[in-house]
């Protein structure tokens, strides 16, 4: 769940709780206060009644031991004095309050009733004075409804305002994530410009990411420099050894065995040279040491490579089909584009089965050009595809000398030119490499 939603929900819940609590408090206290009022009044009434027992109408009722009942027109108040059958000489001054529904005349209402037993002229009577509490109940229900309404409105308003506010509050956070983490696929091109925010926590986050990136890119630079320096420094000694071996081979008194060993050593040196040159190339591409000022016509490069590799294809009896329909050019580095396509096509030869096919086609959809190189070779499973671009990753091949750097080079050159690579492959069926050209370096 998003932080924004979480915060809004939390705020809403706490507000609901507060409103519910105060609502209940108000309800309870209203009941209490109004009952209290009524009870005070009822007690007064009781005192009045008891004082007037001996006078007039009540007295005659009492004398004849009948039930005395009186009420006002609206039946909001009533009073009854009921003679009890048994005389109880020990009456106390206790009064009791109850809430009951009573029928008065023909009306049924809820009353707050004061009950009191008293003795009068040798008889015990039960005095009940009631006051309708309908109005209190009404008030309670109004308050209930009102509370609910307020609750609901408050709920909606706070939810909306919280969502809007947290969105505003969190905007720099998402900006940091987007600009500093998602859009950065290379620490070398990191955007160190600060994201504007007044929230200290986000400033801290921004700074932390920036300093982390700084560290990472420093390490990157160091690593690349290391590779470049080491590679460069290694090439001269290799050159010396290789020349020395060649000169030894000039001596005619060399035995055949030694001669073979010399040649084998030269071959090993050559392998070493290839690996170093490949690493050097990758490191240079990744260090942006190439410019992108050439207009490279893809179809032309493919044609060139086909000519260069024709004999390799013939040797394996491969059928090469060129279905390129568009004349598409990009702005880039021509030698690098050549190396890129060369490596891809070379792989499709290397891993192809004898008498297989290589098909090159292209498509242009919505301004995005892509070129597809499909072969009928050994293919790869998902795991192999994932690892294919790693350095020194190589698969079973008939050919002994594979350095596993071809696709690593492809990866660095495609990244350099903003070309996306898609590989579809079925084990045993073949591989389909799709190069998708970003229209940023498009050129017509």
């Amino acid at each position, binding site marked *: 769940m998003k932080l924004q939603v979480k915060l809004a929900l939390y705020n809403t819940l706490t507000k609901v709780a507060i409103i519910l609590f105060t609502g209940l408090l108000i309800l309870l206290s209203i009941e209490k206060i109004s009952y209290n009022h009524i009870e005070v009044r009822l007690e007064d009434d009781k005192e009045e009644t008891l004082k007037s027992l001996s006078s007039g109408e009540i007295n005659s009722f009492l004398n004849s031991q009948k039930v005395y009942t009186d009420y006002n027109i609206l039946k909001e108040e009533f009073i009854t004095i009921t003679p009890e059958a048994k005389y109880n000489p020990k009456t106390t001054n206790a009064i009791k309050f109850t809430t009951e529904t009573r029928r008065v005349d023909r009306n049924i209402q809820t009353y707050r009733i004061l009950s009191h037993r008293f003795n009068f002229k040798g008889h015990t009577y039960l005095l009940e004075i009631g006051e309708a509490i309908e109005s209190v109940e009404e008030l309670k229900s109004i308050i209930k409804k009102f509370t609910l309404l307020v609750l609901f409105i408050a709920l909606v308003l706070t939810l909306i305002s919280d969502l809007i506010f947290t969105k505003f509050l969190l905007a720099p956070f998402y900006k940091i994530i987007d600009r500093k983490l998602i859009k950065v696929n290379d620490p070398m091109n990191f955007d160190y410009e600060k994201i504007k925010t007044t929230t200290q926590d986000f400033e801290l986050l921004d700074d932390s990411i920036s300093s982390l990136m700084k560290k990472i890119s420093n390490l990157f630079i160091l690593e690349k420099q290391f590779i470049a320096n080491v590679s460069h420094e290694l090439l001269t000694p290799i*050159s010396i050894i290789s020349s020395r071996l060649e000169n030894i081979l000039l001596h005619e008194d060399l035995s055949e065995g030694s001669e073979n060993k010399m040649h084998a050593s030269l071959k090993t040196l050559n392998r070493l040279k290839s690996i170093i040159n490949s690493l050097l190339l990758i490191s240079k591409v990744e260090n942006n040491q190439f410019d992108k000022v050439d207009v490279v016509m893809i179809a032309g490069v493919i044609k060139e490579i086909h000519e260069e590799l024709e*004999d390799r294809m013939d040797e394996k009896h491969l059928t090469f089909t060129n279905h390129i329909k568009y004349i598409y050019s990009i702005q880039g580095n021509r030698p690098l584009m050549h190396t890129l396509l060369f490596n891809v096509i070379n792989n499709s030869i290397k891993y192809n089965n004898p008498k297989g096919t290589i098909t090159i086609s292209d498509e242009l959809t919505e301004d995005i050009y892509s070129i597809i190189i499909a072969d009928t070779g050994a293919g790869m499973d998902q795991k192999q595809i994932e690892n294919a671009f790693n350095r020194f990753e190589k698969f079973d091949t008939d050919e002994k000398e594979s350095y596993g750097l*071809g696709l690593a080079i492809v990866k660095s050159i495609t990244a350099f030119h903003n070309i996306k690579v898609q590989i579809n492959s079925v084990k045993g069926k073949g591989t389909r490499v799709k190069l998708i050209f970003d229209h940023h370096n498009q050129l017509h």
Partner: protein
Amino acid sequence: MNVLIVEDEKGLALEIDEFLSHEGFTVEHARTKKSAEEKIFVNNYDFILLDLGLPDGDGFDLLKMLKGLDKREDAVIILTARGAVDDRIMGLEQGADDYLAKPFSLSELLARMHAITRRKHRLESNDINIKGLRVNIQNRTVIYNDERINLTKKEFEIFNYLVLNKNRVISRTNLTEHVWGDVLEINSDSNFVDVHVKNLRKKLSQYIPIDWFETVRSIGYRINI
């Protein structure tokens, strides 16, 4: 022909010296930019093999200085471990005749030197005669008794390279690199250079016996003259 090797790595300079001396060149060394300048001022060279990274400066400066001198036809081959495409282009633009990235094979160096010689002097007499076959570098043809042997571009390259490096075993690796260039990841161990050699031998043997065109088992080829 005399050659000046401008190279600060003594070991490498000595090996190049030994190889070229063996090929009949007169060789001089310079290990710094300063001493190279002095030598270039004093002598004319047929070839200057120029390393770019010198202890006291950049080889490009030497090249610039040389090109500033009057009436000099010294051919310059840049030898460098930098190997960057930009360096290559810059070197050639500044008037270098060729460019070899370290490590290079000495036979490749020799082939490049021969190619430059021919380009510079444009001499018909530069045709090489071998067992009655006439190899013409300019036209890239091989002629036998006024009849042109129909070789493909690659077959000619292979033959020419082997002829230039006659009496020496040329490995497949070396041959592949010469013909296909320094292409990364190309499989130098593959026998696809053999296919071309096989075709080449077949074509040549239609004209003359080719017992001098030797296959050296598991290594490569040699032309014995």
